[in-house]
């Protein structure tokens, strides 16, 4: 009895580790199933377009507004710090580099996970809870091909575009603060940016990051929805898991990708 009590935490740890590995395996198999059933979402592309509208287009407001404010904050903070070293001229480069390399992809992905990822999980989870997925399968239509794959591809397509828009709005925000508000020289602002930003190592690498984030977030979202316990409580906890897991995975992936890229 005593030994049992002592071993309980260890057993719990082992149990949750095995569960986590099990789930990772399930998710990998799920990704393979999605890829194998992607023919329809590419051939009948309007299915995917519809989901791009829900996942991408409807996220525009939050991405555009957040991007603008992040850029404006970067402008203020950057100007404060740079002017202490007498290099306020480099503000354009600072804003652009921080956005393109880090903040754009990461923040856009976090916003995308909480706006669209959670919606995907809730929608698929509720479809499961109300027997819609089962009805589809009984009608000889594979729910992975018809429901999951179009959403997955929509997420993968939308994410880099949203990140790019976030960057554009952020840079515009930095310009508003630096040039319009503070009164830095406009020519210097842009030319500093142009000289210091490299298409390949900064812009493209940032987009590659957001592509990885898009795959990770959407896969987590559709998997959690498909795997949800078909009850109100089950769908709600699956939605929470999507947002939490996505956030952790985005930040961890960001570290790994940055280590490889820069």
């Amino acid at each position, binding site marked *: 009895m005593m030994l049992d009590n002592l071993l309980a935490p260890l057993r719990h740890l082992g149990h949750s580790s095995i569960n986590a590995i099990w789930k990772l395996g399930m998710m990998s198999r799920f990704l393979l199933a999605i890829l194998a059933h992607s023919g329809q979402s590419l051939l009948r592309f309007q299915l995917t377009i519809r989901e791009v509208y829900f996942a991408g287009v409807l996220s525009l407001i939050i991405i555009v507004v957040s991007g603008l404010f992040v850029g404006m904050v970067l402008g203020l903070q950057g100007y404060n710090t740079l002017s202490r070293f007498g290099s306020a001229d480099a503000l354009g480069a600072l804003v652009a580099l921080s956005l393109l390399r880090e903040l754009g992809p990461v923040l856009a992905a976090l916003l995308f996970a909480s706006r669209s990822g959670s919606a995907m999980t809730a*929608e698929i989870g509720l479809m499961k809870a109300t027997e819609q997925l*089962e*009805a589809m399968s009984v*009608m000889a*239509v594979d729910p992975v091909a018809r429901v999951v794959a179009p959403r997955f591809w929509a997420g993968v397509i939308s994410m880099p575009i949203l990140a790019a828009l976030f960057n554009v709005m952020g840079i515009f925000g930095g310009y508003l603060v630096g040039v319009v508000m503070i009164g830095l020289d406009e020519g210097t602002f842009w030319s500093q940016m142009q000289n210091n930003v490299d298409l390949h190592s900064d812009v493209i690498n940032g987009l590659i990051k957001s592509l990885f984030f898009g795959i990770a977030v959407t896969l987590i979202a559709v998997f959690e929805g498909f795997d949800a316990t078909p009850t109100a409580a089950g769908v709600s906890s699956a939605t929470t898991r999507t947002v939490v897991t996505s956030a952790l995975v985005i930040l961890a992936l960001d570290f790994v990708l940055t280590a490889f890229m820069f």
Partner: protein
Amino acid sequence: MQNDSFIEFKHVSFGYGDRLILQDISLKIGRGQLVAIMGGSGSGKTTLLRLISGQIRAQQGQVLVDGRDVGRMNQRELYQHRRRMGMLFQFGALFTDLPVFDNVAFPIREHTSLSPAMVRDLVLMKLHAVGLRGTESLMPAELSGGMSRRIALARAIALDPQIMLYDEPFTGLDPISLATIALLIKKLSDALGTSAVMVTHDVHKSLEIVDYVYFIAGGKIAAAGTPDEVRASDSPWVHQFIHGEADGPVHFAYPAQQSLAGSFGLEGA
């Protein structure tokens, strides 16, 4: 009818873990017959439907549909089997993101390459068959329970199935909607000549429309017969079930480990 069976269960057993849901079930459903499976909640009726549609596989025995064992079909054969089958779910299971028209058109669009004009005609015909032409632009959330069940029925018959499965089609409906659904099920079975299995615990309505009844209790077939035979049955179990008596061969109280006095700590006091 017994010789020309379209759906046949041969000594089928199924369970989750140690809990057996169906034990050694054997039954036959003839071509073009409408058969009801009745039993209390949790008696394994829905499991029986899921075995026919191949959503689950029998652990023992065979489920034969048109001579082929559903449990041995691979994914592709299973999907072919399901194309000849329509299923009405307990609460309709309409796609909530699509309007009525697209819901009914769904199986047609997925499995055929008919022109939009043809799809439209077919959908309107099916909606007309359930008496709901004119609702095609409504969303499922705007329909009443009875209406969505009828739309789901229109969707289930969209491809003129050879087999229809009804999962508790009468649950939660007002008497008028219930009578409408029952009439539609009977009419469609007769008109399309489908073999239909209806899982239900609504005794009186079902006995009016079906050709044959199986009663399931405790995972086994407790009784079977035509509606007239069932009404005349002297089995105490059937009597309790069709007259809805609270106590009888099926006890009112769930079997408890302890006596009532024991639960209150009064035993031996």
